[in-house]
């Protein structure tokens, strides 16, 4: 669906994308990265609107550098920012956008009515959009990206500004875009947690570099993590190091400490380890082993928690990986 090959984008002051190579398959793909990671920049290059400094990319088999127009005919785009004129109704606006995508007037009207219904906009679609809630605006933004029945939509932070309920509804809608409409989705967010519920595949970028690209199932497995906090004792002035050694003897797999982690006060007392499997079906014996190991060493066990993986862990893991 999308093939990105050694793609870089340099602005005078920042490198937004740094030799990014990644392939994206049909389905729902989450593109995760912190603010400034280069998500929006990547989308603009994929639409053929901003030239890459080097490298290449194809979307639906078409080259972004030379076939931008043809790509944009079959791709939908939902920007991260507000983009709706307040004095126009959703219907008029989406009809106009459908025509801008090349749909004849009658088809544009039919597709608009269908699409607005699918995104859950009913009577209010005849009212000026200035009076809409954020949730309704996001739905119109999604509708204009879908109205020409694209093969792929690029959604830039569609949950931005939504409350938890609105967020869930939007994520459900995005899921349906693929399952019910058969349209592939590339959706960005800075929250891994929300995309893992929606996506088949997750791509994580940071500072314009690829951190990880894997199926959501793999991702969930690999990032199910147990965090153990212990105190130091006289016998073991570095409690975490001792615990790590002992856990390894016991056949478990604690993470190496990240070099920058020592800088954070208190962080030195934390040991993290993969516990495999999905949250919920973890082997209970791991907890026992950890508890017993800590007790044998005479270390105080402050807390033990199974974490939902957070984007920050992906980043620290990378820094750990970089030294190794």
């Amino acid at each position, binding site marked *: *669906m999308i093939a990105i090959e050694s793609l870089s984008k340099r602005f005078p002051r920042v490198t937004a994308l740094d030799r990014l190579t990644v392939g994206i398959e*049909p*389905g*729902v793909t989450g593109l995760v990265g912190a603010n400034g990671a280069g998500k929006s920049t990547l989308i*603009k290059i994929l*639409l053929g*609107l*901003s030239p890459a400094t080097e490298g290449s990319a194809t979307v639906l088999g078409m080259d972004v550098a030379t076939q931008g*127009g*043809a790509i*944009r*005919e079959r791709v*939908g*785009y939902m*920007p991260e*920012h*507000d*983009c709706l*004129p*307040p*004095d126009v109704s959703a219907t*008029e606006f989406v009809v*106009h*956008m459908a*025509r*801008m*995508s*090349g*749909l*004849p*007037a009658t*088809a544009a009207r039919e*597709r608009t009515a*269908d699409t607005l219904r699918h995104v859950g906009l009913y009577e209010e679609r005849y009212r*000026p959009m200035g009076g809409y809630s954020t949730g309704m605006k996001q739905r119109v933004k999604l509708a*204009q990206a879908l109205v*020409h*029945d694209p*093969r792929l939509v690029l959604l830039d932070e569609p949950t931005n500004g939504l409350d938890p309920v609105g967020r*869930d509804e939007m*994520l*459900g*809608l995005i*899921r*349906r875009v693929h*399952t*019910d*409409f*058969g*349209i*592939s989705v590339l959706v960005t967010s800075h929250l891994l947690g929300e995309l*893992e*519920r*929606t*996506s*088949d595949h997750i791509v994580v970028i940071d500072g314009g570099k690829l951190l990880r690209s894997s199926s*959501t*199932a793999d991702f*969930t497995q690999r990032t199910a993590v147990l965090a153990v906090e212990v105190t130091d004792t006289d016998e073991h002035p570095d409690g975490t190091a001792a615990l790590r050694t002992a856990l390894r003897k016991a056949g478990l797999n604690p993470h190496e400490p990240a070099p920058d982690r020592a800088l954070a006060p208190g962080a030195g007392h934390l040991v993290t380890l993969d516990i495999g499997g*999905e949250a919920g079906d973890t082997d209970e014996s791991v907890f026992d082993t950890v508890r017993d190991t800590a007790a044998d060493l005479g270390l105080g066990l402050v807390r033990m928690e199974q974490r939902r993986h957070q984007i920050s862990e992906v980043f620290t893991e990378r820094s750990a990986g970089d030294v190794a």
Partner: protein
Amino acid sequence: MSPDRTPEHPTTTGPAPGQATAPAHGRTATAERGQDVIHNIGYRGYEGPRLGRSYARRALFTQSLRGSYGLGRSAKSKVLPMLLFATICVPAAILVAVAALTKAKELQVGYAEYVLLMQPLLGIYLAAAAPQAISMDLRFKTTPLYFSRPMERSDYVAAKYAALSAALFLFTAVPVLIMYVGALLVKLDFSDQTKGAAQGIVFCALFALLHAAIAAWIAALTPRRGFGVAAIIVAITVPYFLVTALQGIALTSDNSSAIGWLGLGSPGTLLDGIQSRFLDGRSGFPDAQTLTGSQGAVYLAVFVALVACFYALLLRRYRKAGL
């Protein structure tokens, strides 16, 4: 159609949020397709024609042109353009009535001259229409939605400029036509009037091309509407009155040869010079001066250069307008 376009849940309702949020459960197209017997009556794809750039450009032109008269917009936004339109048409009708009553041989005011007299009104109309057509998309950041579609930035600029020019052309050409039809009805000389009106229409086109380019560029630089309105009125009226005043001074201070060259200093006087030199119009310059041959050539060259220059600036503005 490629296999990835096959809906995996061909039912009307989507999966419940819980279901949707568990992508780990190996949802594969083949696994689900066999189970569902209800056919998709929810989402229909689109197999019809996709008409491409030139169609989009035309559709944008029509929509913007209609919008310049408040058509397809709220009732409130029709008021000002329609009021102004009526205001520019009424005096044209009055001129015809006067000609009829006085049994004159010709209209009191020439066709192009009429347009020039109405400049303050045209300034107000442009100051309302240009921000509406141009600034709104920038202010509400709608332009990325256009540029993420097949059209290029140049298509967008071409459509908007053409729409604004056409709106202004209609605004001036309709009163010219009213005068012409009226003149024929009161049986003024047919060939005189036809020639005059044709020249008047040409003048309307020239007027629209130049003023739309200037106003569009100003509007593209001022996403905030209030600024744009003020800036356009100032840009169109102030230089005109300034140049006219300077020409007056030139005349009284025995420098009347400077009058022609001074006329290059504002869009209005530039067009006045062109119409009196090339379109048989009455000059609005002091002493009703007309241009010399070389001045005329310079006027035409400046006209073309200005239109090209403002259009290029407009294009450049959109090349910069980030997505």
